[in-house]
């Protein structure tokens, strides 16, 4: 196969793990079907990773993705023709698949592996543990490829021209926001538009602010609806978001534009002449929507979404998201693939390119393909709290439905209490 990095050549890579895996697995003549969310550039990157699996085992991999992959996986599992391995970004959906009995548990050995090898291992185990068809919890998923969401993007030169400083605390961030507004400029670009998924960028905001205003266990209760959605803790976070997004002076286009501006278009305001805004809250993937030729770290950069000075005790929480690999059809190849994901090389190959973060402790962080990636990796590793995207953890109908709609209504002017009550009502309806 076409291997991106010749085994054994670059000593930064953990080639030993590759050789070891190669020795232990021979799957010649077998085919492994993988179904994942990655398309386009991401698909090419993923291919470059699984090429090593192919090289090592001799198995053939059929990877496919589709625009409607969530729908696709539901149909395929229901109808009884699932792929061998599915990789999905939504824990909610995974929970559902698990509860219907379509997933194969990965076993205690993997659980132990996660505890041992992933930073903040317990939170990954928690994330990967779901109730099966019989109601017993088991580890069903293997987290692989993480995105950091607690990032604020800006253009350093614009900061320079205007004399702004990167804020270190939330209080400073708010002050900066007010200062920019006072200068007659718009501080933020916020866009919630995403076609059928309109609203989701706001949920990231809220979750990030939840982690910065509440203790992690409140967050956990929130996503499990152990505290109601209209709990003051939640409405508080909503209002914090409202402070940024519902102020016509603070957002480009005014509050009215927030809901309808496409999230893919919104960061472009950072780069116009004159700049339409100075700050943009978005996950680590967003540079693909920056103008062509933008160099991260120079033309644009990011800083960690700062915590409140006043809530020091919460430390540096990080909101993230990621994809989880599942065995949807129990075959030796599928098992082997999960094993493969446990090798450092499966992480390093992607790390060495772009847009891949991992909590795997024993990978060589020097391999990160570029400084920003490394910086994100550091944010991830220095996190005192790591939490997975809450809306992805909630049931689909809420996390990919009522919550989005609620956020759209919220920026449209509805009060936080009403919005939260609506979401809670929807949640009640599916119980």
């Amino acid at each position, binding site marked *: 196969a076409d291997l991106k990095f010749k085994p054994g050549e670059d000593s930064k890579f953990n080639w030993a793990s590759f050789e070891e895996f190669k020795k232990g697995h021979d799957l010649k003549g077998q085919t492994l079907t993988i179904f994942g969310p990655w*398309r*386009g550039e*991401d698909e090419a990157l993923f291919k470059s990773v699984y090429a090593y699996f192919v090289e090592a085992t001799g198995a053939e991999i059929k990877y496919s993705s589709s625009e*409607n992959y969530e729908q696709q996986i539901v149909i*395929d599992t*229901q109808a009884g023709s699932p792929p061998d391995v599915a990789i999905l970004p939504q824990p909610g959906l995974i929970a559902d698949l698990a509860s219907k009995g379509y997933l194969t548990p990965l076993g205690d050995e993997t659980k132990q592996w996660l505890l041992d090898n992933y930073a903040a291992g317990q939170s990954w185990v928690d994330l990967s543990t779901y109730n099966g068809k019989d109601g017993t919890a088991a580890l069903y998923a293997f987290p692989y490829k993480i995105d950091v969401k607690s990032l604020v993007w800006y253009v350093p030169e614009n900061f320079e021209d205007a004399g702004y400083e990167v804020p270190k605390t939330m209080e400073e961030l708010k002050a900066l926001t007010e200062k920019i507004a006072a200068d007659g400029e718009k501080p933020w670009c916020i866009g919630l538009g995403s076609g059928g998924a309109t609203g989701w960028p706001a949920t990231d905001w809220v979750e990030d602010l939840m982690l910065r205003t509440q203790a992690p266990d409140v967050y956990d209760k929130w996503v499990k609806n152990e505290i109601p959605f209209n709990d003051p803790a939640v409405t508080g976070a909503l209002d914090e978001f409202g402070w940024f997004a519902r102020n016509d002076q603070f957002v480009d286009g005014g509050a009215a534009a927030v809901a309808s501006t496409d999230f*893919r278009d919104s960061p472009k305001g950072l780069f116009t*002449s*004159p700049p339409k805004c100075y700050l943009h809250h978005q996950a680590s*993937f967003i540079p693909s929507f920056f103008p062509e030729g933008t160099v991260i770290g120079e033309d644009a950069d990011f800083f960690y979404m700062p915590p409140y000075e006043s809530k020091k005790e919460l430390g540096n929480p990080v909101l993230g998201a990621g994809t989880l690999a599942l065995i949807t059809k129990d075959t030796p190849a599928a098992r082997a693939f999960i094993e493969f994901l446990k090798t450092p090389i499966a992480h390093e190959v992607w790390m060495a390119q772009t847009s891949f973060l991992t909590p795997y402790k024993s990978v060589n962080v020097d391999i990160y393909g570029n400084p920003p990636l490394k910086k994100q990796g550091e944010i991830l590793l220095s996190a005192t709290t790591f939490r997975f995207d809450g809306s992805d953890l909630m049931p689909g109908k809420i996390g990919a439905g009522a919550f989005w709609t609620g956020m759209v209504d919220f920026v449209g002017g509805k009060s936080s209490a009403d919005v939260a009550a609506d979401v809670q009502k929807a949640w009640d309806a599916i119980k």
Partner: protein
Amino acid sequence: MNPSTRSPLTWAVHVSVLLLVVLWTMPTAGLLISSLRDKDQLAVSGWWTALATSSRNSVARAPSADSQVERDGKFVISGNFLGGQPGQVSAFGFSSREPAKFKPGETAELNDGERLTVQEDGSFEIVSDKRMEGSRGQRIFFTSATPPRFTLENYGEVLSAEGIGRSFINSLTVAVPSTVIPILIAAFAAYALAWMPFPGRAILLAVVVGLLVVPLQMSLIPLLKLYNGVGAFFGVPAKTYMGIWLAHTGFGLPLAIYLLRNYMAGLPREIMESARVDGASDFDIFVKIILPLSFPALASFAIFQFLWTWNDLLVAIVFLGTGQDQLVLTGRLVNLLGSRGGNWEILTASAFITIVVPLIVFFALQRYLVRGLLAGSVKGG
């Protein structure tokens, strides 16, 4: 009829059609123009502005310090940020706060003692007394009038994608039989419903109408289950071309039957009677009389069925799969978009690439929508 029977208001007809056409094409025109534009422009300015010379604020970056030359004891970086493109600079600046502070020809004092001059044609010069440093060049903001500029890059990108030819053939392999088979089946059924008396005819017709409403999404799971079952039983793969043809056939049938029956029922019954008297069986009548006379309806339906099967992604993915030798063109194009699907330049270009074949089909079949097909057959009426 001949021209002299036309209403004298033909100009009104021309004008109204033109108006409607403009109304209907306007959105698509936007798409077309967008597909020819530079992708970064898409989100910043309206597509219609691309057609005219427009005044635009842009940012350029001067080459980095590496490219400075020493001239008369001064260090100079020069270049042209219009890059040879026609255009005219009307103002410039070096700070994001004052992007249009200077007029072309003026000299701007940069913060660190460098001096920047920009000419109308976009050429600029940064002059400094001391050697300049830094890996990034100076940002220059400028306002320029740029004439329309289009690029075929987006199309190039889409068309050069790997496996696109293969997907094209896959799509055709799906679409052609998925168009022909339902037409054949539906035509027979429509004939029976229109011209053969049997009990329960009206009810059956109504059921067909009712089935038009069945949401595709509802059928996918039960059908895929069935396919898997059948595939397992015969030991063949569940996802085959045969399977998708039949699926498209099933989904297309109600409309096909409904449209064709309506058309066939309107054919003059004398023609059928006369064929019957000539000794033709129902089969003969169908093949030799009804089919040729139903060409307009067959062609119309063929246009739509082809279009649906060609543009379909869902059914193809569910019943055919996404492997190399199955992935259809729409699937391939969607996969070109990033995982978050925001590449509008690819979207727009691929929308136009997929549209071509259905439009050819439309054009080709349109000539079967002829006038006066029945002229001369019966007298009176």
